[in-house]
């Protein structure tokens, strides 16, 4: 009996899947927004940029909720009440611990049990769900979202959005959009040591080398530079920011294929001369005992311990690492001064290697058959992409959580605290009101994004934000289809392991750099060429089919 009903459920699910796929396939010919004309219950007739969205009847939407322990979900937050008041929409959050959000999201989507709105999804995380048909191709419905379209056009985000496109030419994620790229990781330096040695803050990686040299001359017993973020892969952060400055990011930012704008084609990142150049640079630091060789394997706490006990003066990090980790770690040494210096410049020039897209929202394909579908898309458009919605999610309600200053600048209300700006205020913008929540508040204009940044971080952003976007950050789309992706993933795993392993050997001097050509040949035996052919094929096909 039970087995039978399960089987029937499976058959229904398979049928539904086939149907959705079929529909999606038909979608190319007919106008998808016409398809949903039946599902307009609660939607506004004429909704455009600048309008306050308000559903014509009370509607509610289920939503996956990434529950942050610093401001755990409360159902009586002003955020929910005010949201319902303004938009007539009630959100039904299903709370998932932040610690394992991605896993639960994946299970729910695969089991067909996902809520309609699935936020906190980073670009490319949606790839895994595309072939199952469980996720809505949102690109078909952006006509329902005037604010989104407006921001994409006004901020010229078209090329970035194109990188999200799948082999069918559609994209399945509504990304968070920044007007300006927001680059945050760099080197953190003991400025009191710089002063002691009479050195200037380094502006380029060559000056970083000079600085480390001078530190080593004065303190020969120590490694002036030690680094963290080595779990699971060696110095994920350093390889990323240094690699980006040379034009071939590794570590956290590693992509197997990188767009070579000059040559007009994709090349394999870890076999490029740019990659070799930064590996040589790190090798120089290690062999002259300027960079701690343990950096690539130690835990974060070990690295922090070395900085805290002045066994080292330079480490990488972001504003959070600086304020939450390094400064309190050094609390017992009042002479120590730390600063996050603007990202040093390398051979790639004054570029900002950060993308302007952030985590965003996926929509379950079930939503399309919901009678409130159009209202839902308009609601998402208002909350996540309109100026008013973004301000509301971040700052809250005027008079209660914030006030407008004389110059029209927003300020926290006197009795409201957030991230320690008013330590003695009785209420908390996130914990007590539910605003400035990572699920709803991200992206937007720089002044909004940087609302609650400390002055030193705003200064950092003013310098790095003025740099040109790096050319490889917005490559032309070259999406794999399903079979290609499966094959590529197999090759990627072995290639990545080998790249990381050999790069580390080159850096530590265990393998002489003279063997670089041999290394490139070894990559070829691990299918590097076939991988690049696949990439080229995907690029050519996309160009032919979708321009």
């Amino acid at each position: 009996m039970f087995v039978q009903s399960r089987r029937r459920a499976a058959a229904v699910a398979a049928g539904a899947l086939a149907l959705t796929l079929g529909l999606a396939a038909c979608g190319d010919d007919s106008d998808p927004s016409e398809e949903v004309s039946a599902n307009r219950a609660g939607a506004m007739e004429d909704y455009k940029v600048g309008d306050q969205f308000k559903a014509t009847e009370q509607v509610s939407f289920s939503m996956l909720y990434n529950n942050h322990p610093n401001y755990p979900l409360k159902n009586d937050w002003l955020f929910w009440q005010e949201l319902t008041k303004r938009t007539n929409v009630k959100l039904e959050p299903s709370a998932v611990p932040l610690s394992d959000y991605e896993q639960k999201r994946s299970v729910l989507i695969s089991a067909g049990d996902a809520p309609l709105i699935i936020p906190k999804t980073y670009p490319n995380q949606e790839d895994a769900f595309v072939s199952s048909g469980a996720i809505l191709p949102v690109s078909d419905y952006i006509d329902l979202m005037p604010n989104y379209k407006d921001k994409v056009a006004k901020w010229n985000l078209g090329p970035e959005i194109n990188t999200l496109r799948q082999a069918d030419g559609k994209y399945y994620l509504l990304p968070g959009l920044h007007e300006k790229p927001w680059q945050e990781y760099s080197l953190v330096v003991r400025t009191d040591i710089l002063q002691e040695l009479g050195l200037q803050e380094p502006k380029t990686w060559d000056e970083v080398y000079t600085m480390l040299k001078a530190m080593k001359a004065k303190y020969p017993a120590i490694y002036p530079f030690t680094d963290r973020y080595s779990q699971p892969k060696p110095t994920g952060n350093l390889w990323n920011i240094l690699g980006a400055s040379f034009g071939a990011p590794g570590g956290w930012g590693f992509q197997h294929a990188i767009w070579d704008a000059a040559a007009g084609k994709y090349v394999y990142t870890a076999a490029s001369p740019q990659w070799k150049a930064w590996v040589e640079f790190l090798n120089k630091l290690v062999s002259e005992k300027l960079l701690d060789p343990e950096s690539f394997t130690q835990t974060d706490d070990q690295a922090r311990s070395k900085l805290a006990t002045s066994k080292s003066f330079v480490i990488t990090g972001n504003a959070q690492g600086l304020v939450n980790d390094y400064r309190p770690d050094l609390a017992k040494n009042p002479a120590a001064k730390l600063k996050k210096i603007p990202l040093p410049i390398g051979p790639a020039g004054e570029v900002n290697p950060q993308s302007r897209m952030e985590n965003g929202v996926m929509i379950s394909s079930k939503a399309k058959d919901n009678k409130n579908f159009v209202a839902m898309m308009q609601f998402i458009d208002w909350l996540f992409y309109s100026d008013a919605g973004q301000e509301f999610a971040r700052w809250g309600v005027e008079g209660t959580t914030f006030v407008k200053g004389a110059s029209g600048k927003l300020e926290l209300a006197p009795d409201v605290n957030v991230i320690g700006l008013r330590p003695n205020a009785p209420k908390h913008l996130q914990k007590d009101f539910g605003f400035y929540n990572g699920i709803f508040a991200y992206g937007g204009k720089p002044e909004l994004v940087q609302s609650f940044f400390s002055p030193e971080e705003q200064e950092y952003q003013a310098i790095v934000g003025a740099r040109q976007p790096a050319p490889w950050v917005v490559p032309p789309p070259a999406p794999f289809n399903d079979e290609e992706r499966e094959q590529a993933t197999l090759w990627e795993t072995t290639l990545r392991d080998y790249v990381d392993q050999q790069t580390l050997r080159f850096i530590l001097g265990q393998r002489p750099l003279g063997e670089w050509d041999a290394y490139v040949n070894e990559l070829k035996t691990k299918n590097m060429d076939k991988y690049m052919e696949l990439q080229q094929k995907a690029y050519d096909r996309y160009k032919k089919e979708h321009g």
Partner: protein
Amino acid sequence: MVTLGALKRPTRRKRGIRPTRGYRAFQVVNAIILTGVVVVTLYPFLNIVARSLSDQASIISGEVNLLPKGFNLTSYEHVMSDPMFWRNYRNTVYYTFVATCVALILTTTYAYVLSKKHLKGRTFLVAVAVFTMFFNGGLIPNYVLVTSLGLKNSVWAIALPNAISVFNLLVMKAFFESLPVELEEAGAVDGLSTYGILLRIVLPLSKAIVATMVLFYAVSFWNSWFAAFLYMDKQELFPVTVYLRNLIAGSTGAEFAGAIAETDEAQVGATIKAVTIVLTTLPILTVYPFIQRYFVSGIMLGAVKG
């Protein structure tokens, strides 16, 4: 006085054989080695307790060993002032209790049946259990199954899918097989039913294995978080393991990069792991002494004669 001395000597002798020099040397060496073992096993735990009570700067610079430095209770306050923590703690106790009871009943009865050599289809029943040791449906089918049975958001989603651990089942089966069959036969001759034999003869003689199973199951349910994380949709239903796991992730990960945690949150980040270990390990540790007294061997000596 002489008589007294004469009287004393025999009593002394009765206490036992005078230890030889070799035995004494053995005792000294033994004591030293075992003290070493105690230090080695206890030190990490004491160190964790000390870390949980220290401040960030002292921990990071490696100054904390056995005693806390820069005494600090922020993390304990932060965790224990949250009503959700206590609520989830109550859930953990409740889930552990229910799941352990269910698991114990099912495992005992299954194992007892399997220990009977004359049972028809016994090999098949063993094979069914052992099969699940090596193969399972996988994450998503399990999720679909539990959801469509309507177990989501209830204690049964935790208790039922994990009710029988095959390893425990086999251990118990082996124990029951080692019980002398004559005892059960004697019970049957005296008029006991099958259940009477199990309840009045076999179980009272199996306290050691039952205590072991209680310990195994209770500890595993106490520590488990994945089933609850998967099948519970509301934070009020989570066990404390999920709560603390999330707290660790939140204090170590960077959600709003560029945004700065409040000072107490930074301190929490430094000690939260240690605090978590102390808060979740202590209660289950206190269970051990109560169960340990059942770990007695040789209880069966002399039960069967002839």
